[in-house]
C-alpha cells in the first residue's frame, strides 16, 4: 500500500507492505537509521520518535497507521543550520551517553517530557524515563543532562 506522511518537516510517500512497522519504514525505507531497535516487546525505548507531537515507540506502530501524521525523529532535532537542540547539547556536556545506542530514544523521550513538564525534578525525570533502558550510564548523567536542558541547576545533593 502507498502511505504518505511528514517526517522531520519533509513530506514523504512510499509503497510498503501492510505489515511495515513505523521503525522499519524510517530506518529502511527512508534511511533514517538514528532510530534504533533494541527489543521486540516495546520495552527498551531505543525507537522512540514523536508522532503528532507525542512520544511513540516506533517498533509498536504500523507505518500505515501513521498515514498523514507529523513524525519527528532524532535526525530532526537539531536546527537546519546544525545547531544542536538544548537536550542534545546537554547530553554531550554532561556525558549522558556512552555507546550511544539508546541515546536517540532517550533524547526523544526527554524532549517529550520537557514539553509536558518544562521544569521536572529528579524524581519526575526518572519516572518519565521508565520506558527507556540505558545499559551504559547508570542514568546518573542522563538525569543531569535533562536537568541542565530544562535550565535547572544540575548540582545534585549526592555529588
Amino acid at each position, binding site marked *: 500500500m502507498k502511505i504518505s506522511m511528514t517526517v522531520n518537516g519533509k513530506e514523504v510517500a512510499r509503497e510498503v507492505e501492510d505489515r511495515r512497522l513505523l521503525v522499519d519504514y524510517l530506518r529502511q525505507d527512508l534511511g533514517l537509521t538514528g532510530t534504533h531497535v533494541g527489543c521486540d516487546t516495546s520495552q527498551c525505548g531505543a525507537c522512540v520518535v514523536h508522532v503528532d507531537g507525542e512520544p511513540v515507540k516506533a517498533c509498536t506502530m504500523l507505518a500505515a497507521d501513521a498515514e498523514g501524521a507529523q513524525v519527528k525523529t*532524532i535526525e530532526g532535532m537539531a536546527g537546519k543550520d546544525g545547531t544542536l537542540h538544548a537536550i542534545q547539547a546537554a547530553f554531550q556536556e554532561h556525558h549522558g551517553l556512552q*555507546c550511544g*545506542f539508546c*541515546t536517540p530514544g532517550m533524547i526523544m523521550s526527554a524532549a517529550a517530557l520537557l514539553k509536558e513538564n518544562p521544569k521536572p525534578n529528579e524524581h519526575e525525570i526518572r519516572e518519565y524515563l521508565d520506558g527507556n533502558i540505558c545499559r551504559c*550510564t547508570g542514568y546518573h548523567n542522563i538525569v543531569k543532562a535533562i536537568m541542565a536542558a530544562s535550565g535547572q541547576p544540575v548540582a545534585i545533593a549526592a555529588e
Partner: protein
Amino acid sequence: MPKDSVIGTSTKRREDKRFITGRGQYTDDIVLKDQTYAAFARSDVAHGKIVSIDTSAAEAMPGVLAVFTGEDFAEVGGNPAGWLIHSRDGTPMTEPKRPVLAHGKVRHVGDAYAAVIAETAEQARDAAEAIDATIEELPAIVDLRQAASDTSNRVHDEVASNVCFDWGWIEDNRAAVDEAIKGAPHVTTLELRNNRLSPNPIEPRCSIGDFNPGTEDYTLYTTSQNPHLTRLLVCAFVMGIPENKLRVVAPDVGGGFGSKIYHYGEEALVLAAAKRIGRPVKWTCSRSEAFLTDAHGRDHVTKIELATDFDGNFIAVRTETFANLGAYLSNFATATPTFLHGTLMAGNYTVPNVYVNVKGVFTNTVPVDAYRGAGRPEATFSLERVIDKCARELGIDPIEIRRKNYIKPHQFPYTTPVALEYDTGDYDAVMDRLEAIADLSGFERRLNDSASRGKLRGLGISSYIEACGIAPSNLVGALGGRVGLYDAATVRVNATGTISVMVGAHSHGQSHETTFPQIVADRLGIDESKIEIVHGDTAKIPFGMGTYGSRSLAVCGSAVVRATEKIIAKAKLIAGHMMEAGDAEVDFEDGVFSVRGTNKNVPFGDVALKAYIPHDFPLDRIEPGLEETAFYDPANFTYPSGCYACEVEVDPGTGKVEVMSFAAADDFGNVINPMVVEGQVHGGIAQGIGQALMENAVYDENGQLLSASYMDYTMPRAYDVPMFKVDHSANTPCTHNPLGVKGCGEAGAIGSPPALVNAVIDALQRAGRSSVTHIDMPLTPSRVWDAIHNS
C-alpha cells in the same frame, strides 16, 4: 610534559556528536548493495537428537536463495576455547566441538540447526519456520550439581562426563588450608548462588557477510569488541579462510559488556552464505534470539568458608564452586571461572591460606562466559559476603574487620597465596575516602528517619580488588592462555601535522576517541583536536586484542604511549637534521624541538612536514615519513581496588528494596579523563544493582529459559537507581605501565553487589530478623518478603 597537561582533564566526548544527532553507524545501519537476509531455525528443546531436517518446503518459499544445515559445516572447524585448563589430577579439560550449526544433536534452546537466506528478513523468517526438523527430545541437563554427578546423561556424548574440568588453585595449598581451617578458632560458612545474567547490550548482535568473487576477499561487518580476535578465530579455527583475505569491521557498537567479545556461529554463517550466493548476507538478532544465543554470565554455586581467630584476623579461605559453562565452551568460558576468579580469592587481605576448587560443568543452557567483571565479581561477592557474615558472628564492625585484615601500603608489592603479585594499593586510604563521601557518621540519623516512615534501613560495605589490564602474555601463557594479550597502536603523523592513531582496542562506549588523543596530546604537546583515533577495522589497525577486562587504557593506551615515544625519537632525528645538531642534543618540550644550550628551535608541525618532504634527508640515517607502531605487553596485571557503601530501605510490607544511596571510592591509579571514568563507574554500579536486585536468567527443569524477553528479564531503569557518589582521589599509580593507570570499566559491577546484599541483610538484622544471614541474588521483593516472613 607540557605545562597545561590534558591528562586529568574532563574533555568532552567527540564521539557524541554523531550519536546525539542520529548519525552513528551501527552494523544494522549498514545496507550493502543487493543485500540479502539470514534467519535461523533454532531448537525449541534443550537437548535432542537431530533425526532429520527436511528443507525442501523452505527452499520453495518465496524469496529463498539458500538453506544451510549443520551438514554443510561438518567439515569445517569448531569455535575454540581460548584457554586450556588442567584438572587437579593434571588431565586437560575436555573440549567438545562447537559447530557453526548444530550437527547430530541440539544442546540448548536456541541452538541453531539450520539457516535460510532470502531476499527480505521476513521471507527468511517465514522460510526458517517452514524447515521441518525431527528432533528426538532427550532429558534436559540443567541442574549444576546433578549434571556434575550424572555420567549417563551427557551434553556431549563424545566426552565421558559433564565435568569439563575440576580445577584446584593452588592444589599444593590444599592440605595446609584444610589443616588451618580444622584448627581455626572460628569458621564462617556461606553457601550461595551467583545468579545467572544475560548481558543485554541494548544493541542486539548483527553481522553482514560479503564476498568479492573477483578478489576472493571476504568482509565481515559485525558487532564485535575485538575485530582482530574475531578474524583470527574465523580464519584459523572455523572457516580456514586465509587471514589476509578476511577484513573484519566492527563499526559503532552499542555496548558489549563481554557478550560481543566472542565469535558466534552466525558470523561464520553469513560469510559462507555470502560466498555461496554471491551477494551480501545480513543477520540481525532479535532481542528474543539474543536471550537464547548471547553468552550469559556468572552462574556459580559456591560454598565458601572463612577461618578466623576470635579477633577477626583471617586465617584461611576455602571455596568449592560449580561453574555453569552452558552447552558449549565459549571463547573465554574456561578462563572466567578459574584464573579470573580463583586468583582473586585473597581479596584485599592478608590471608595466609587460600584454596579454590572450581568444577566447570556442561549443561543444556546457553554458553556462559565473561560478563562485565568476569570471575572477579563472583570472587568478590563470595568473599565480601562471608566476611560480612563473619563480622556479624564475631560482633565486629564490618569496616573494622576489613581494615584489620587489609594489606598495608608498606607490604607492596604483595604476593598472595593465590599467586598474584599486587603492585600498589592503599586500601585504608580508599576506605577513608569512602567513609567521608558516604557520610557514614550520619547513618544513625537516616536510620531513624527511615524508621519514622515505616522502612527498614540498612548499610552495606564491601571492598574489592580486581586483576585487570588483561594481561601479560607470559603469565597467561603459563596459566593456559592460548593467545597473547598485548595490544598495539600505530601513530601516523600526517604531513600537515595532524595525527591518526590506529589502535587495537575497540570503543563501544568507553570513549577512546576522546581519551586516547589526550594521551598523545600530552606527550606531543599539540592540540588534542588534531588527533584522530581509528579503530574497529582490521584493514586499518594493527593487530590488537580488543576491549575487555578493563584493558584498553592500561594495555592499548600504553602501546599508544610507546608508539608516541618512538615518534618523538624519530622526530628528534629530523629536528636535529633541520637544526644541524645531533639528535642527542635535541630536547622536546611543549611541542617544540630545540637544541640544548642554543636558541635554535623548530615546532612539531614543521618537523612533521619535513618528514614527508625529505629533499635533503641523509637517507642512510633518516627514513622519510613519521609513522610508528608499538606492541605493548604489560609486565603484570593491574590491580584497581575500591570500597563501596550502599544504603537501602526495605519496605517490610512488600519486601521491596530501594537503593537510597550508593558511594564508591576507587583507586584506578592515574586518571586520564575524570568525566569518563566516573561514567564508567556509574554504569558498572547500575549493572551491579541489577544483578543484586533484579536480573536473573532462569531456566526451568526442562531447560526452557523463563526470562527470555524484556517482559520477564528485569534490568535497572532510571527510577531504580540513585545519584551515585564517586571518588577516585586516593589513588596509587600502577608501577609497571607508562601511564600509571589501572582500568575502571568493570569496577562498579564488581564492588556493588556485595555492598547491596550486605545492606539488605543489615536492614533485616537491625529489624530483629537475626536468622536471616543470607538471601540469594537477585533480592527481589518476593524473596526479601519471604525472608522476612519465614524467619
